């Protein structure tokens, strides 16, 4: 970390404006049978990006809906061929290893083994995750200068798979190692103009962030021990519940504190540093209050939608059901209610989280940014087409 003048980052987006935009674009998405979603995502990102102010300059999102749509079409063709043929062949060869099951559990295990071919999708999902991040950076500008990322998605895929395996084999003890090295892989390949980001620090620096996950495991361990010794579930159940609750808190704690450590140890061009101080309590409060608001408002909307459905479709119901018109009306109302729900989540949970992470971030020695030079245009590959087709990411 360098010392130097601190520049705070501000977020100016408003709940109402974002909700209106998200709701309007979600309705258009429903009416166009999902095709407008690429433009919807683009418009929402434009709003969110331009709400981030760094030293008085706003971020700019330059992605277009059209390139996302075309990228999606390409991804669909490739995935349809890959998924169709590979899954079918894996299933076929899986059949050759089926033996007569002795028990019901064994039969279930076999079914799981046959369908585990779905794991064939995991490398693609990792690939899509990296490419989506590269596309987002390639379409983000500050002061007219592009961000960017190296085209190195396959290197990310095999590293991520090895780290996942290692973490699984060590029962999660090496989770910080996975988190740190994967973040470093991505960060060290990210640029602002011609200036490269670099992830500093050490992977062991993430262990303090894991403390509450460890406590949760200990509580669960004690619960299991109590059950084994006393054989009285009434004593073990409260411990198990406490352990799970603590585990959920531990995950949030790890995510937020991990981000704090990782972001505070990033450098740009060896000169510009960052100071990130997101707070666990604030993040949990945003989730809880946001869920409450979304739940109340969303519940009301669902109630109104159901009432409207009953009024619209009820009189049409004859002895042979309601017919295709009724089905279409129900589907449209259902999808409309979903649009409201999505827009509420974006405005009341996602945006406040983004705002919190922005406003707790400071830039050290931002004056050095003036020397950064433009980088070349990156076509952006599939423009997130794979990520969209594989359903990774969500609204933004």
């Amino acid at each position: 970390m360098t010392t130097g003048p601190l520049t705070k980052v501000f977020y100016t987006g408003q709940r109402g404006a974002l909700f209106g935009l998200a709701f309007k674009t979600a309705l258009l998405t429903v009416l166009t049978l999902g095709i407008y979603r690429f433009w919807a995502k683009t418009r929402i990102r434009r709003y969110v990006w331009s709400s981030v102010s760094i030293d008085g300059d706003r971020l700019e999102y330059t992605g277009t809906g059209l390139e996302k749509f075309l990228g999606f079409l390409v991804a669909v063709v490739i995935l349809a061929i890959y998924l169709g043929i590979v899954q079918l062949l894996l299933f076929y060869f899986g059949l050759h290893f089926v033996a007569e099951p002795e028990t019901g559990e064994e039969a279930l295990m076999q079914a799981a083994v046959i369908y585990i071919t779905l794991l064939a999708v995991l490398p693609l999902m990792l690939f899509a995750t990296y490419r989506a991040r590269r596309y987002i950076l390639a379409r983000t500008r500050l002061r007219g200068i592009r961000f960017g990322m190296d085209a190195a998605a396959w290197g990310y895929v095999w590293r991520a798979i090895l780290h996942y395996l290692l973490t699984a084999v060590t029962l999660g003890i090496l989770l910080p190692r996975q988190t740190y090295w994967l973040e470093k892989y991505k960060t060290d390949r990210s640029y602002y103009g011609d200036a490269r980001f670099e992830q500093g620090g050490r992977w062991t620096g993430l262990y303090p962030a894991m403390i509450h996950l460890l406590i949760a495991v200990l509580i669960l361990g004690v619960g299991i021990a109590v059950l084994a010794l006393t054989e009285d579930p009434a004593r073990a159940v409260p411990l198990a519940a406490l352990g799970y609750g603590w585990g959920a808190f531990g995950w949030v704690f790890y995510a937020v504190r991990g981000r704090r450590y990782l972001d505070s140890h990033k450098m740009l061009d060896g000169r510009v540093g960052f100071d990130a101080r997101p707070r666990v309590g604030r993040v949990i409060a945003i989730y809880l209050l946001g869920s409450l608001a979304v739940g109340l408002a969303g519940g009301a909307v669902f109630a109104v939608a159901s009432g409207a459905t009953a009024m619209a479709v009820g009189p049409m119901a004859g002895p042979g059901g309601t017919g295709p018109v009724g089905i279409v009306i129900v589907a449209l109302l259902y999808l409309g209610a979903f649009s409201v729900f999505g827009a509420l989540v974006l405005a009341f949970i996602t945006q406040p989280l983004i705002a919190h992470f922005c406003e707790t971030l400071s830039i050290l020695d931002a004056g050095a940014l003036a020397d950064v030079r433009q980088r070349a245009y990156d076509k952006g590959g599939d423009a997130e087409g794979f990520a969209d087709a594989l359903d990774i990411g969500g609204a933004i």
Partner: protein
Amino acid sequence: MTGPQGAVAATFFDGQTAQRHAVRIAPTSDGLGLAVLFDDAARGALVWPFDRIRALDGQADRASLTLTLRAETGDEAPRDPARLIVTDAAAVDWFHRTRPALFHRDVRPGTFRKVAIWLSGAVAATLLMLFVILPGLANYLAAHIPVEQEVAFGRAVMAQVEYLFGDGEKGLTCSGAEGQAALDLLVARLTEGQAIPYALQVRVFDHAMPNAFAAPGGQIVVFRGLLDDAKSPEEVAGVLGHEIGHAVRRDPTRLALRAAGSAGILSVVLGDVSGGTLAGIAGEHLMRAAYTREAESAADDYALMLLADAGVSSEPLAAFFDRIATLTDAMPEYLSSHPLSAGRAERIRTGALYGADRHILDEAEWRALRGICG
């Protein structure tokens, strides 16, 4: 902004470096362009022609404008990388009022053609995959899988079904020895002289649903509900003939292979649509329904052939379909995986062989079969 005297302060980024430039802007004297005058005297003035000036759309800050130039670059949009940030309220208002082309979209020529080509290509490729390549591949592989593997797979499927729907330790299969003997007798009489690639294994599940199904490898299951609802052993024979038809044509294996291939494709096509899971399930159902209706008709034909060869009338089967029509035909045909029962009954009657009147089981055997579940 009426003249050079009224020049207002703005911020300029040249698109080459992240250096912030303080500038003043004003319309040129001929009114055709915007002059950008740098406070840093070392830099010469720029003129941006008004007809090419565009502003960024959909920005969160309504009080300012980010201006750029339309330019034929290879970028994602035809825009110059330079940016001019105007925050002066009067100037922003002036731009909004007097520059109608400010938010013009500038679509590149040939864009619609490109979209049309890619869209039709993607739709064609997906349909080809779902309705030609995968079914073809599934049919080919189903015909080439060794019978013993298919049988093992079928046993595994049956074990899963029994485990999932059974009541814990007690299996679902009814074990009445006399009933099973009668059932085997019925199957033997029905398939006498036919070339059947499997050792058929027919059993009864203790469940009230009036239904039957075939699993891969010649595994056939009849539910107790069907035996309860049937008025004669010939009705049961007709239904069994239908299921044997599925087994002989390897339909269960073909469908399992097809499903394995097409399962992921629909969710990929739907992508990130909210509520997409439900639409995906509905689409999957429609697709499978289209696949199987055809297989059902073929199995009906096979059943007719078996009944005719065994000298059994197909009238009882037609009567059976008529009875269940009231239950199953509430669903329109395009939603259902089976042809409408009323239509099937009609087809079966037309194909019926007159004079066929053999009783496939006698009274005592029929009673034993109905009592198989105790």
